[in-house]
């Protein structure tokens, strides 16, 4: 037996000396978008994505400001990009063994975000939410927004089958407009026009109340601007769209962001800029500042 092992080792050794293994491919250190003639697919599993090289971007724990994320459970997020006529579409893939698309007390959903500097050029702000005079544009996809219930009342009854509710003040109103107005009165964030509530399948705001109407199903992305920690402010109407699918124990999410109309803004075709990313794992109670984030990585868009 010992002789046999020695022979095998010898053969292997001779073999190695005769033929060296091919050198590993050079690491991909930038997100180089591939151009596609038609609309880039929002389906992250579409074969069109094979044309785009994937950069494995290291994920870091958000350990700059409190509340911090103490541990980084996911090493990298795989980033690809396609450019079509008017959009750059990112494909983000990361490992997450638990699918979290419900939001409730103590329950948080999975999410991912793309951050781009607002201004074109290489003078990028801090990768941590931008700076007061150097804003960043952030597009956030949340599983809870994509999978939000079509009917809040039905979803509530399903989640709490033994619930006993005496009465909602608005339930007695026969006129749908009156009912909607009353229901909004008891949903102060909705009445205040909070963009977050537009993603929560509440009834649309009655006339005279602010806030965007609920986006159609599939609109799971919110666009926002930030000028430093704690300044994230959602734009009135999202321009980006996105879609997430589960692929084994991984999320594959696409986020399509319109190209900038002005040359001095990012992103524009033919110009080099930067992008950063963040990932939230709902099961790990990641929310807000409790997240995994990346540094800026170069983003190259073809002419």
């Amino acid at each position, binding site marked *: 037996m010992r002789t046999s092992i020695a022979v095998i080792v010898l053969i292997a050794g001779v073999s190695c000396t005769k033929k060296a293994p091919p050198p590993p491919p050079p690491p991909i250190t930038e997100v180089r978008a591939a151009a596609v003639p038609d609309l880039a697919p929002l389906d992250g599993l579409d074969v069109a994505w094979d044309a785009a090289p994937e950069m494995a971007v290291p994920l870091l724990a958000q350990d700059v400001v409190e*509340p911090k994320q103490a541990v980084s459970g996911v090493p990298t997020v795989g980033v690809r990009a396609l450019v079509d006529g008017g959009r750059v579409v990112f494909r983000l893939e990361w490992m997450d063994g638990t699918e979290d698309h419900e939001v409730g007390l103590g329950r948080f959903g999975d999410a991912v975000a793309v951050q781009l500097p607002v201004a074109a050029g290489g003078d990028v702000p801090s990768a941590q939410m931008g700076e007061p005079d150097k804003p960043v544009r952030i597009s956030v996809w949340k599983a809870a927004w994509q999978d939000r219930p079509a009917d809040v009342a039905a979803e509530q009854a399903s989640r709490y089958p033994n619930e006993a509710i005496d009465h909602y003040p608005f339930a007695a109103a026969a006129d749908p407009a009156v009912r909607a107005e009353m229901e909004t009165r008891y*949903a102060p964030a909705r009445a205040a026009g909070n963009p977050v509530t537009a993603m929560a399948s509440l009834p649309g705001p009655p006339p005279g109340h602010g806030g965007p109407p609920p986006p159609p199903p599939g609109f799971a992305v919110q666009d926002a601007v930030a000028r430093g920690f704690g300044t994230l402010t959602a734009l009135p109407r999202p321009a980006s769209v996105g879609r997430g699918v589960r692929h084994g124990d991984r999320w594959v999410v696409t986020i399509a962001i319109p190209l900038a109309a002005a040359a001095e803004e990012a992103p524009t075709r033919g110009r080099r800029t930067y992008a950063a990313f963040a990932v939230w794992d709902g099961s790990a109670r990641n929310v807000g500042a409790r997240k995994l984030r990346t540094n800026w990585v170069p983003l190259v868009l073809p002419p």
Partner: protein
Amino acid sequence: MARVFNHQLGRVMSYWFPEHRPERQFAAVFDTNKCIACQTCSLACKTTWTSGRGQEYMLWNNVETKPYGFYPIGWDARLLEALGPQAWKDGVYEGRTIFEAAPAGERLLGFAPEELDYAHPNIGEDESAAAVDKGAHLVAGHANAWMFYAARICNHCTFPACLASCPRGSIYKRREDGIVLIDQGRCRGYQECVRGCPYKKTFFNPVTRTSEKCIACFPKIERGLQPQCFVNCIGKIRSQGWVSTPEAAREDNPIDYLVHVRKVALPLYPQFGLEPNVYYVPPVHVPAPFLLQMFGPGARAAIATYRSAAHDRTLAGLFTLFGCTQSTIARFAVRDDTAIAWGDDGEELVRVPLREPVTIRAPWDESLAVPRWNIP
């Protein structure tokens, strides 16, 4: 962190923001000895503010039986256990506040309740601290068998933990009255305030996916009126007003008089470090160690002062004014046998006799040949 002076602790402490007190501070006194846990306050609040979807188990005002009542379950016990020793020496707190005990990477020491912790708002109702020996009746003053009712709203703290917790700055303290509010247009539902408030008086609404809290009925406050839970209290245990810092206390300000002058009303868990602005007259029948933990080192003296009210016209008169006007009392006085309250503009709000006139009728009505009931 900044360094601020917390007069309830008698010392400087760490806080997330520099000290910046409002022009005047919303405050209240609750007399626990009068509360019967009828929950009228809870219903007054609920029907006014939290009858919408996602607010079903949200009680900005709740009344719980101590020691075994909690809403949410274990809200205070869990934090007290995590906070470590909470010693006082000569009126100065020697332990750590929740800000000073913040774990690495956190803004403060807090915990996130689970959904089921809110599912039993009146758990422990009327349970006494221990079994009653040799019988099923409870005699007041029994050594171990005691309980009392703690009515709770947001404390609109001077150093709010909810405000410190919010990484977005979506919570603010109003300069004009010190009321703490969540900006409903800006909250993104991170639930950091729910985790951070030690009194658990911020709530997550799963339908709007934002957090909500007691607003001290600010539309009423702005009109000189006391909040719903105050004016609907049938036990007349509450009075809302304005509290000064100790050095600026005025004897004719009802809250100042009870809190700073007579020291008969005490903050709830002052050791947490928030300088809460709802003050409690402690229950007279509860063992001192429990009261010390819940209301700080002044509990025993407060009870002695409270018991003396029967022979103290000013103190008795002020308590008589509780629940006798829907307006906020800015100034009071006791003259002869009458307590008088005035509003912000000097207008007289109400005057109440210290002793109501009593007429005792004969128990038998001769003319109708029927018995009478004398009802106080």
